Every structure is written in structure tokens, then in C-alpha cells.
């Protein structure tokens, strides 16, 4: 029944758009357009599976960001079985194309749509106004509406845990980060990585190279090579591929996996992977819609909700660092450990968090400074 309805739904949408022309051109098309409300009502009948769609910015095979989201999609598909049907569109650029793709997904009868990159924010809000009956979930954004809510993960907790390991492993006391685009999320990760390392060796410094892309493997590799040439012996990245890890492997240095477990890409270089697990949130979101309890809001999950973890620790990591990683994880889960707790000093020596003060989420979301220990200056932020 569902499959028979799709073309009708799609047709009626199209026809509704060009109704004035159709009225002029041919009266015979009019009844089709008039039947739209009836068709929609049937599509929403409770016996049919909930259609859930995902729009991804990269390929599902990027082994990083999009791969992690798709793992989340597979997890909800497995959990809810025949109650839902999922689909995805990959490689949807953060441009006018996004609006077209998301409109298509909504037109095809999807009732819950996930957009997994920051740049979909405006397109989603726009499409959401046209489809009030559809729920939209936007990853890493900050604007919401009645049927749009946002979700994100505290990737900086993973960066901090990786930093603890990096601090224990570095001998040159110079760490390197291949950074993508200078937005607060990425700057927060660089800072957290450095703070984590300083728990092990207080005089560690971090060099940063920005490549202004999320996904450009040759450039990620070149940036990693540049950092290695300048003395960095442990690398981290906030980009989407495994190129940094593989460059470290080639050069005999150390590195981490990011977003998903990348241990098999660099058996010698890999120290651990800071992973994002989207499944818990996707299960909650689908559950909310199925139960009829979905309402707008903002969610930011971390180690506590099992959305963030540091996995596949290498045998090279010394027991003391492992113990510290476990201590931080346990503290985050119990709510007794704060990564961003004063005293924290920025690069210029100015105190940004007074001793004993714990940063609020609003503070964390707006970070646009390097902490002490990070070298260089931030790309001009406008």
C-alpha cells in the first residue's frame, strides 16, 4: 500500500506547486490535486512504518564523521525493526542542494529527518516551515523551531581523553593538531586536547595547522607532515578522514582515530580512537516520535550518556595514563569531574575561568580563544 501511495504523494506535491498553470492548461488534472489531503491522511495511518531519513554531508565510507552517523542509523534500524524504515542520501553539500534534497525527503513521506552537518541549519529551518507535520533533527546547529530540534555530542570530551594519552606518550613535548574550520567546536577540541595533555606534562605545547576543509585527505596528510617536520610526535585531527593517522604511521609517529575506530588504519601509530556514538540519541529521537512525545529542544550528550568514548587503546599507553583515562571517564559519568574547571588561562595569560569555577554550556559553546600551551594565533574570526 505504501509503495502504491508514494508516486501519488509525490505527484500531488508537484501538481500543487504548479496548480495555477495546470488550471490554465488542462482541467483534467484538477481532481488529482484535490485528492492530496486524503492521500496524506492514509500515509500517516499508525499501521505503516515510520519513515526516517538521513541527509549526510560526506560519503558513508569516509571512515569518520558520516560513517559514525550511518552506524547510528543502522543501530536504530536494527532496534526498531519493522516499526520504522530508514533511508539516507550521502554527499549532500552544505549549499542550495541541501534544501532540495531535504525537501525531496520530506515530500517522499519521511516523518523524521536527520541532517548531520552544521551547514544544513538554514535549509532545514526553511523546509521545516513548509512541512509542519515532519520532525527535523539537526546535528551541531543552534537554531530551533516548533518542528526542528538540535542535537550534538561533546566531542571535546573525547579530545580531552585523547590529550591525556598524548601527554603521556609525547617525548618531544610538542603535539600537533590538523584542524578543519575555525568554529568554536573545533577550537574547543584543540583546547581540550591540550588541557588533557597538560594533566600529564604541564609544559606540553600544541601546534595547529588549519586546512579549511572537513574532508580533503591529501591536504590532511600534508598538514600532518608539516606538523611532524616541525617536531610534533603525537598528532590529533578534527577532520573527517584517516589520512592524518596514516601519515603518522608512515613517518613512525603517533596519532589517534577521530569520530570512529580507526585502529586498523595505522597499527603502529594508533594510540586510541575518540569515537562518537550517535546510536543512543537516534534511538531516543525515533522513540520520541513513535511514542508521540517528540518536542523541540536542544541536546548535548557526552561520555555520561555514552555518546562519546575513547576506545581501542594501544598497548603502548602506560598504565598510569590508562588509569587517568578511566578516572576521567568515571568522573564524567558520575558528574563529579569537570574538564573545563578553573583555573584556566588563555594563550595571552589572561584568566578565563577563575579557580574553582566550572564552565557553563554557554561558555563552552562560545569558545574562540586558545588556552595556554597552544601555539600560533587563531585564523581571523569575523
Amino acid at each position, binding site marked *: 500500500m505504501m509503495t502504491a501511495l508514494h508516486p501519488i504523494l509525490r505527484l500531488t506535491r508537484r501538481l500543487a506547486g504548479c496548480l495555477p498553470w495546470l488550471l490554465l492548461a488542462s482541467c483534467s488534472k484538477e481532481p488529482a490535486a484535490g485528492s492530496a489531503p486524503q492521500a496524506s491522511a492514509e500515509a500517516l495511518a499508525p499501521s505503516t512504518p515510520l519513515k526516517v531519513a538521513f541527509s549526510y554531508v560526506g*560519503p558513508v*565510507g*569516509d*571512515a569518520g564523521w558520516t560513517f559514525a552517523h550511518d552506524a547510528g542509523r543502522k543501530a536504530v534500524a536494527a532496534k526498531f525493526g519493522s516499526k520504522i524504515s530508514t533511508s539516507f542520501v550521502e*554527499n549532500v553539500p552544505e549549499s542550495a542542494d541541501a534544501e532540495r534534497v531535504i525537501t525531496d525527503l520530506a515530500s517522499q513521506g519521511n516523518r523524521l529527518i536527520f541532517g548531520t552537518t552544521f551547514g544544513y541549519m538554514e535549509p532545514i529551518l526553511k523546509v521545516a516551515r513548509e512541512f509542519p507535520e515532519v520532525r527535523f533533527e539537526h546535528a551541531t546547529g543552534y537554531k530551533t523551531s516548533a518542528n526542528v530540534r538540535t542535537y550534538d555530542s561533546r566531542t571535546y570530551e573525547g579530545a580531552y581523553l585523547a590529550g591525556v594519552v598524548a601527554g603521556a606518550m609525547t617525548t618531544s613535548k610538542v603535539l*600537533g593538531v590538523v584542524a578543519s574550520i575555525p568554529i568554536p567546536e573545533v577550537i574547543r577540541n584543540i583546547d581540550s586536547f591540550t588541557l588533557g595533555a597538560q594533566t600529564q606534562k604541564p609544559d606540553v605545547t600544541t*601546534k*595547529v*595547522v*588549519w*586546512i*579549511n576543509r572537513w*574532508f*580533503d*585527505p*591529501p*591536504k*590532511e*596528510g*600534508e*598538514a600532518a*607532515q*608539516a*606538523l611532524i*617536520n*616541525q617536531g*610534533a610526535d603525537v598528532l590529533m585531527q578534527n577532520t573527517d*578522514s*584517516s*589520512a592524518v593517522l*596514516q*601519515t603518522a604511521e*608512515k613517518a613512525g609517529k603517533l596519532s589517534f582515530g577521530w569520530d570512529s575506530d580507526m585502529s*586498523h*588504519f*595505522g597499527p603502529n601509530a594508533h594510540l586510541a580512537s575518540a569515537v562518537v556514538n550517535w546510536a543512543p540519541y537516534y534511538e531516543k529521537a525515533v522513540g520520541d516520535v513513535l511514542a508521540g512525545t517528540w518536542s523541540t529542544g536542544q541536546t548535548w550528550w557526552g561520555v555520561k550518556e555514552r555518546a562519546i568514548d575513547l576506545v581501542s587503546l594501544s598497548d603502548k599507553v602506560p598504565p598510569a595514563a590508562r588509569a587517568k583515562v578511566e578516572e576521567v571517564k568515571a568522573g564524567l559519568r558520575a558528574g563529579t569531574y569537570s574538564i573545563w574547571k578553573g583555573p584556566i588561562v588563555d594563550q595571552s595569560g589572561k584568566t578565563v575561568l577563575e579557580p574553582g569555577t566550572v564552565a557553563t554550556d554557554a561558555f563552552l559553546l562560545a569558545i574562540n580563544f586558545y588556552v595556554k600551551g597552544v*601555539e*600560533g*594565533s587563531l*585564523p*581571523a574570526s569575523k
Partner: protein
Amino acid sequence: MAGLDSIASLCGASIDAGTALALASLGLTCNERAGVINLGAEGMMLLGALAGFATTVHTGASLLGFAAGALAGATLAAVFGALAIWLDTNQYATGLAASLLGAGVAAFAGVPYTREALGERATPALGGLADVPVLGPALFRHHPLVYGVVLLAVALHYLLETRPGLIVRGIGESPETAHALGYPVRRIRFACVAAGGALCGLAGAYLSLVYTPLWVEGMTAGKGWIALALTTFATWRPLLVLLGAYSFGAVTMLQLHLQGEGVSVPSQLLSMLPYLATILVLVLISRGPALRRATLPASLGKPFNPGA
């Protein structure tokens, strides 16, 4: 001493970065000297990158991978050549189509390989030379293919002065004259296109096997287009191609090194530099007719049909 060391490692990295450009651009020089312009370089590189990577994953032999990469590039070039040379289709449109086709086929066939990793690779060692201070890291720690490219450029430089080289250049200048002298113009052009495609494919395989040892969709990131510009930039001279490729590599690496040194240059501006350099040289060439006339193949981009 620290300064010298970092300059040495910058040189080394620039040479590595320029090698893929040099390979592809030398291939395109072969094409264009024979009068065929091949805009499909990017697609051929991507196809070569995937073929090389997949072959190496399955066989474990990177030599076979390089061969497969060259073969894949040559195959797509042969399709392009058959259309553009024998069927007289527009070289620009056909080249663009070949580029998109190569990128699409590689993306489609490459899906299973995005999670693959290559096994252990032997680090090339040039005996004691690699340990020479400063010069070692700059010049003697590269993959054998990097030295192969230098030899290739030198060989092509001299080859263009030999009798076969002169025939190829003659065909690029005036195919009618070459035809009248009894040379099989189309067959020679086809051979040059296939050889050029093979070098583009090899450049792709270098990227996926040596430079960024992995396969992902679109991994050449526009290097095929830079190689095309570089061919013109070098005024179709192999030794200048090599020099230009290393300069482009140096610009790419310099911006990353400067950032790592904490020099605050807007990285967006630096990211533009290779493209700005390309445009600048294109302008210089078009402003300097003497420079252009010296080497621009007079029949570049024009189909030749002996029957017409």
C-alpha cells in the same frame, strides 16, 4: 641548524607533493605536443588511484598496483582518444566527459575500498646518503617513483629532440604536413594520448599508494586540473614541468609549515596561492606572444581527419 633542518624537511615534503603533479603534467605534455588537449586528467588520475589501491589491497604488491593504475589511466585515455581522434568529437567536451566519467566510475567502484588500509610498506633507503645532514631529509628519503619522475622528465626533454620526438612535434604543429609525408597521424596521436593517460593513472596510483596511502572518493582534489594548468605554465617543456610541479608543491607545503611555525598568515589566502600562480602564468603567457609561439603546438585542440 634548526632552521636548516626545517628548510630541508620542507624541501623534501615539497618534492613529494609535486611528484603527482609532475607525473600527470608530463603525460599531458606528451598529449599536447601531439596536438591533443586532454581535459580528462582528473578522471584518469582518480581511476588510476583506485585501480592501483585495489590491486595492491588484493595482491599486496605495490608494483602491480602502479601497473594497474597506469593501465586504468591508459584505458580511459583510449576511450577519450578513440572519440576525439577517430570520431573527431570536440576535444574539450570529450575530455570533460572523460573526467566526469572517470571520477564517477572510481567513486562507484571504490565504495568497498574506503575502509581498507595498506599493509606494511618498506621505507626506501638510499644507503648512507639518507643520513647525510640537511641533504638527506631533503633529497634522499623519497619513494623510488619520485626519482623515476626526474629521470622521466630528463628523458622526455631529450626524446623531444630525437627523430620520433620531432615527428610527434610535427604532428602537433601541422598534422597535414606530417600526413603528406606519410606518417600515420591519428595512430601516433592515439599512442601519445594513451601514454599520457598512463602517466596520469600512475600519478593517481602514486597518490593512493605512496602519498596519502588510502582510497577515498575525490581524493585527487583537483590535482588533475592543476596539472593541466601546469603544462601550459611550463610552456610544454618537460624540465620546466618538473620545476613548476616542485614549486607548486612548495607553495602548498609552505602555507602549512608557516602555520605550524605560528606565523599568522590567513590560511585561506595561502590556500589560494597555487591557483593564483596558475592564473598569473596563464596571463603572462597570453601577454607574451613570443613566449607562446616558441612552443605552443600550433594545432593544439584541432582534430585531424585525412579524409576530409
